[in-house]
């Protein structure tokens, strides 16, 4: 068995730690590129949402490298993500290869026991004791928290750095070194080393950079290919960005929801607009918008794929927040046809607008 999994931001680093800790063979899909997307589009139905297509591209590229088992997380919420596995399986089977699927669902929906059962079908392969397996899982969790923490800090403090480009350099280096490190423990060590490095970068707190919150559909805001590297671009322009929806957030949030003790402030803030979960992450999007406003951000960028059902609902709500609280919001809708030129022009115009407002305020 050779396991593969789709890309979602930094999860591949945690995946590496987990499978190396378990001693299971695995393949990390090549970093998503335009080619990945092309392959994905070729094999997917036209109208499915962008994440589906990129994931198919990831799978196929991994399978070409020798993977034979696909790990996929489904959530049973009322959105397409939970329905993915069905059609993805059919798509991959039509390639004419023997591929196994392991579907990992949200524990709150299928019950803790079934969840552990499915997880153990992965762990069965590994010949380690249960204690060691638990340790591997623990290390993977630590890894995802660390790398997300590093990325978050780099992106937020990028606007405050004294020597331009330091954070962006560190961020590139840590990912490269982590993936080259041998073994789970080594990888963790690399991450810890970089965490300290990041903490020591000199910053100038008297600066007043533009601060932007990134909100929207979870996959597209995490996956840099689908949002056309928006965070990197903003970072290079010296803009501080913040986004809450990281893979580590998702892990924590689902775990807390399963135990029914989720008290994230996002939901409290979202309440006045959207009282219930309508699927996807519409509620988070609206709640985040409110939170970012309260924390004094200068603007918000909402990103979602064409045809994304829950985000269309939040897009309908956001103008009201924009008006009521006087915070500029830019909605970007992406798919495989999105042209770079027009996209960047819109982002630039948005930044100009914010800059203008800031000057007036002073």
């Amino acid at each position: 068995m050779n396991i593969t999994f789709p890309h979602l931001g930094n999860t591949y680093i945690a995946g590496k730690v987990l499978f190396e800790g378990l001693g299971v063979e695995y393949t990390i899909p090549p970093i998503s590129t335009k080619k990945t997307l092309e392959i994905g589009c070729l094999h997917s139905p036209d109208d499915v949402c962008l994440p589906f297509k990129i994931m198919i591209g990831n799978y196929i590229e991994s399978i070409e490298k020798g993977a034979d088992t696909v790990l996929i997380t489904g959530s049973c919420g009322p959105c397409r993500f939970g329905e993915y596995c069905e059609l993805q399986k059919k798509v991959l089977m039509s390639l004419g290869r023997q591929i196994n699927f392991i579907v990992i669902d949200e524990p709150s929906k299928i019950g803790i026991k079934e969840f552990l059962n499915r997880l153990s079908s992965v762990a069965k392969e590994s010949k380690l004791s249960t204690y060691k397996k638990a340790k591997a899982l623990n290390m993977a969790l630590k890894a995802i928290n660390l790398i997300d923490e590093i990325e978050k800090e780099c992106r937020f403090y990028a606007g405050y750095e004294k020597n331009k480009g330091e954070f962006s350099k560190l961020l590139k280096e840590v990912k490269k070194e982590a993936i080259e490190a041998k073994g789970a423990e080594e990888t963790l060590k690399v991450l810890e080393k970089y965490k300290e490095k990041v903490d020591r970068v000199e910053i100038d707190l008297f600066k007043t950079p533009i601060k932007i919150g990134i909100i929207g559909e979870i996959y597209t805001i995490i996956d840099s290919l689908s949002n056309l590297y928006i965070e990197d671009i903003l970072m290079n322009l010296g803009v501080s960005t913040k986004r809450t929806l990281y893979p580590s957030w998702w892990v924590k949030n689902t775990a807390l929801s399963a135990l029914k003790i989720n008290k994230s402030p996002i939901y409290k803030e979202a309440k006045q607009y959207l009282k219930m979960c309508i699927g996807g992450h519409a509620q988070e999007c609206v709640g985040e918008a409110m939170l970012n406003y309260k924390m004094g951000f200068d603007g918000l960028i909402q990103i979602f794929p064409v045809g994304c059902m829950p985000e269309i609902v939040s897009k309908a709500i956001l103008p009201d927040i924009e008006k009521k609280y006087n915070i500029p919001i830019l909605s970007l809708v992406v798919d495989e046809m999105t042209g770079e030129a027009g996209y960047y022009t819109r982002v630039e115009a948005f930044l100009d607008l914010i800059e203008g407002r800031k000057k007036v305020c002073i």
Partner: protein
Amino acid sequence: MIIGIPNALLNIKYRDAIQEFLHTIGITTVVSPKTNKEILDLGVLNCVDEACLPVKIFHGHVEYLRDRCDIVLVPRIMKLHKNEFICPKFCGLPEMVKYTLDIKNIICPTITAYNEKTLKDSLYDFSKTFRVDKEKFKKAYNGFKSNIYKYNKINSSRSNLRVLLLGHPYLIYDDFINMGLIKKLNQYGVEVFTEDNIEPYDYTYRLIKKPFWTFLRNTYNCAISLVETGKIDGIIYISSFGCGIDSFSIDLIKKDVGSFPYLVLKIDEHTGEAGVDTRIEAFIDLLKRRAKYEYNISSLG
């Protein structure tokens, strides 16, 4: 008080029942007319660009009603089957309407109705707004129940060309959106089946996971049941651009029925009638040719 009922989305299916219910309680209702050009334009103009056509049209109906009644009914339909959902846009419909149309006079009962009890509870919660006593509610509820299946059923005469028409009820029963599709099919002498006049079997065991969308399960079961039992000669699937649920069911069915005649019509506000007509004609021709061919074979053998 006058309540306005937008004649769109699932209201098309439950319109009569809702009206009966409200009348018994003692409330006057006004139903928006069948979708027309004016309503379509109102919807397209006001709704979020990325939304699907049916949702835009719903916005048009609400906009049409806003000055013609005291309060507009925008139901939030969460579930019609246990452990299944309708569509994220149905759950968030009141919010969409409220903030895009900037309208305050709407009433949005939450409907979760997967069995008798939950339906009753949802309606009871709804009726509480009007301070209705128990007796009256009971009568109104019975009125609702007896009218639930009264929406326009399709009668087409028997024929040896039989087509299954798939799609959401608000696409099938709205002649304006589907450009008179059913009438056209009848003119070609085709017998039309829809979800509502067949009894499908449950074929979901073929899937690795039980679908959690009611629409998806329904269409899948209908298509597979009729194809497996040889009751139809072709499938026409009418869908709107940008419908997330159809993007799945169309392909799930396609991958299962193989080379069976299957026509997918996707529509939005820019779709031209001529193009659709040509495609239907070509499809019917194909079915006729197939029928003849099969007939020849059997007479020889």
